[in-house]
């Protein structure tokens, strides 16, 4: 079946979003389930693949675009949010989803994360957080706990982990959620809401790296639904998140800031009209 050319004509199914490329991921990698959740979410939204731009950086997780049938961009390390912002501003009609890893998004890409939250373009940012650099074979990322041993940081980094959700809230993200890849249905549902929510939606997905952080297989046992409903008060959301156990799953904040749209003047002109100003 030729999925790509017929997708627009019929109700979308999750399979319509899956490409024929075999993932490079290790067997058991959490990212397989994120891919599945994404497909389900797109199908539920009913947005045909050609109307979706899936923009990623570099890392195991950032390979995800290739495994879908959407338009995609596999850019350079750390710049996916800037790419995605450009796509959205130029093409407000597209559904823009930006995705990547914790290294890509919070280490090299940290500045764009801050400023995308602040700028609030209408797109959804998904970080597959495995608390490690998978692609480069196991170095600590900003979300790695300070004691974790690795060749590059023998004895651990000793550095306090970065708290993506708190930073997102503090910088102005308009929708904040945490998911677990082991629950693709719940994740899909959250993604649907994130994409529908206007403005910058940030979704952290705990997605185990079975190769370099095999202990993350245990996450399945410790994740649990957030005990309370999402709030629209950023301060309250921040307080809750700061005091939770980092395994609280669910939508944690829904804001109502209007999304970013560059100013447009009422009166439209032609380029030739500009020439007059130079006449002497």
């Amino acid at each position, binding site marked *: 079946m*030729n*999925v*790509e*050319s017929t*997708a*627009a004509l019929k109700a979308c199914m999750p399979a319509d979003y899956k490409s024929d*490329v075999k993932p490079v991921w290790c067997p058991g990698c959490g990212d397989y389930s994120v891919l599945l959740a994404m497909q389900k979410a797109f199908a539920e939204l009913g947005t*045909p*693949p*050609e*109307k979706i*731009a899936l*923009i990623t950086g*570099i890392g195991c997780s950032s390979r995800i*675009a*290739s495994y879908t*049938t*959407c*338009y*995609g*961009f*596999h*850019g*350079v390390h*750390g*710049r996916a949010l*800037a*790419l*995605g*912002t*450009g*796509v*959205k*501003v*130029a*093409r407000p*009609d*597209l559904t823009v989803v930006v995705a990547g890893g914790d290294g890509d998004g919070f280490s090299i890409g940290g*500045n*764009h994360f*801050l*400023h995308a939250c602040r700028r609030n373009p209408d797109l959804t940012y998904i970080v597959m957080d495995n608390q490690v650099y998978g692609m480069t074979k196991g170095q600590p990322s900003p979300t790695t706990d300070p004691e974790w041993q690795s060749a590059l940081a023998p004895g651990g980094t000793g550095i306090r982990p970065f708290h993506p959700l708190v930073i997102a809230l503090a910088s102005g993200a308009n929708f904040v959620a945490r998911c677990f890849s082991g629950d693709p249905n719940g994740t899909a549902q959250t993604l649907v809401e994130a994409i529908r929510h206007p403005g910058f939606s940030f979704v952290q997905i705990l997605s185990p790296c079975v190769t370099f952080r095999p202990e993350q297989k245990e996450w399945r046992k410790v994740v649990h639904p957030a005990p309370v409903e999402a709030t629209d008060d950023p301060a309250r959301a921040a307080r809750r998140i700061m005091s939770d156990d980092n395994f609280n799953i669910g939508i944690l904040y829904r804001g109502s800031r209007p999304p970013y749209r*560059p*100013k*447009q*003047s009422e*009166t*439209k*002109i*032609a*380029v*030739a009209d*500009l*020439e007059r100003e*130079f*006449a*002497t």
Partner: protein
Amino acid sequence: MPAKSQQGAQSVSVALVGSGGAGVMTAGTILLDAAAKAGWYGLMTRSVGPQIRGGESAALLRLSTTPVECHGDSFDVLIAVDWQNFTRFAKEVPLSAHSVVLADPAAGAPPATVVDIGLQIIDVPMQEILKKVAGGRPNMLALGLAAAVLGVPDDIVTKVVERRLGKKGGEALESSLQSVQAGRAAAPALDGRFTLAPAADATATRWLMSGNQAAGLGALRGGVRFVAAYPITPATEVLEWMAPRLTKLGGALVQAEDELASINMIIGASFGGVPSLTATSGPGYSLMAESIGLAVAAEVPIVVVNVMRGGPSTGIATKSEQADLNIAVYGLHGDAPHVVVAPTSIGDCAVTSQWAVHLAEKLQTPAIVLSDQFLGQAQAVLSPPVDTGEGPDRLINAAPQAPAARYEVTESGVSPMTIPGVAGGQYISESLTHNIRGRPSTLADDHLAQIEKRQRKLSTFDYGERWADIDGDGPIAIISWGSCCAPIREAISRLNGGGKDLRLISLRLISPVQPERMAEALNGVKRALIIEQSHSGQLYRYLRAYYDLPKDTQCYHRPGPLAFTPGEIRDQIARMQ
């Protein structure tokens, strides 16, 4: 010494100097504007000190009966409101024994370096005079002096003052006009020595613009509708000029958090189908290098304007140099061919940036526009740069058949592109080495096929005659680029017999190289002189690497911040002749 005929001088240079920020600049702009209205051509540059505001500054003008884009060897007239920190920029205001200085004795004695030249110094008691004008303005008095000396008609100056300062309101405008008149009245009789002759084509249309504005205009003409950028001297005016105009054209400008973001934003927007541009200078350009390489590999059209300033590192932000040629041509990791073009004059900034948009889109590649601070920030009265009519002629596959082969190997090297939103055209714009479908690949064959394709589309494209401007056909060739071209043109025209043994090749297409066209352009050439404003002779080395130059090829090169003068270049040419 200004060429003087019965009809007056062909061109006159005037420097208005004084501390206190924008004062002399305002006077200079009005003078330039009035000269344009009176039918002359002209150029104005500014020299500013390190002070962010209120430091010393100088408005350096040259008015002429024919188009002019460089200063002369020395200034004919210097009007000094005061001498504060004059030595800091004295080298930018060369004077000769034929120059005349008008200065207020109350502002202190002229610096010894000026007096020692042995020129004529005329006292004008400016402060004294202005005491009689309510709210009197020294800069407007200087304007009046200059207008009188040059013979710029009274009514035109008045009209421009009214238009430009009108918004300041009644009293301020009134005292400005009175100050101008006081200046006129105080102007010494100089035997009409510096009176300009009427321009030949006094009624032709003239535009007053800077190169940065011209670059912005060219980009909009070319079809750019998205800009993302981060401010940096001396490129900011490109952006500040474009920002409000883009919103009126239905486009947008986003101020990014840094240059890493701005370059990626324009890549994203262009992937989305909208012709996009950013403008920056050396430090910002460096930061963009990684992602310009992304645009090469993923074949996304973008335009990057680099208005070069003094380097290395933060260097001299407010002065010109041509030392970013290397990074523009060679500054990407891996084999990453792309387009580099350079305007050959202030007005040409429009033509070249329009062409850059066209080439970027047509060849699905980054096109770098290498402008420089002189071209970018100089204000000139010039003939309107033409709209070439070239737009964003991207090869689009509007009715794609799945599976999409975004990176199809074609004869031209250009692969048809699909635009997000179009069903059946989905593909991944890919930074990894990939096959024709955009799938990551580490195979030698795929790598070679795509690398060759990207080189081929650049090498085989027909760039037409615009690759260089060629003047003359003598056996000595001068090869140059950017803001060097204007003083070279003037030096040649000054040489005995109009420099008949000379041939000037002003390069507009820096990369890819055009060996056949160059061979043709050098046909019959025995000796060549390359002229450029860099310490290491970047253009010379680059040409040597890729072209067969005449055996006897020399290079005259030095760094900024001082612009070349026609005399300096004439001396170099004379040595060759």
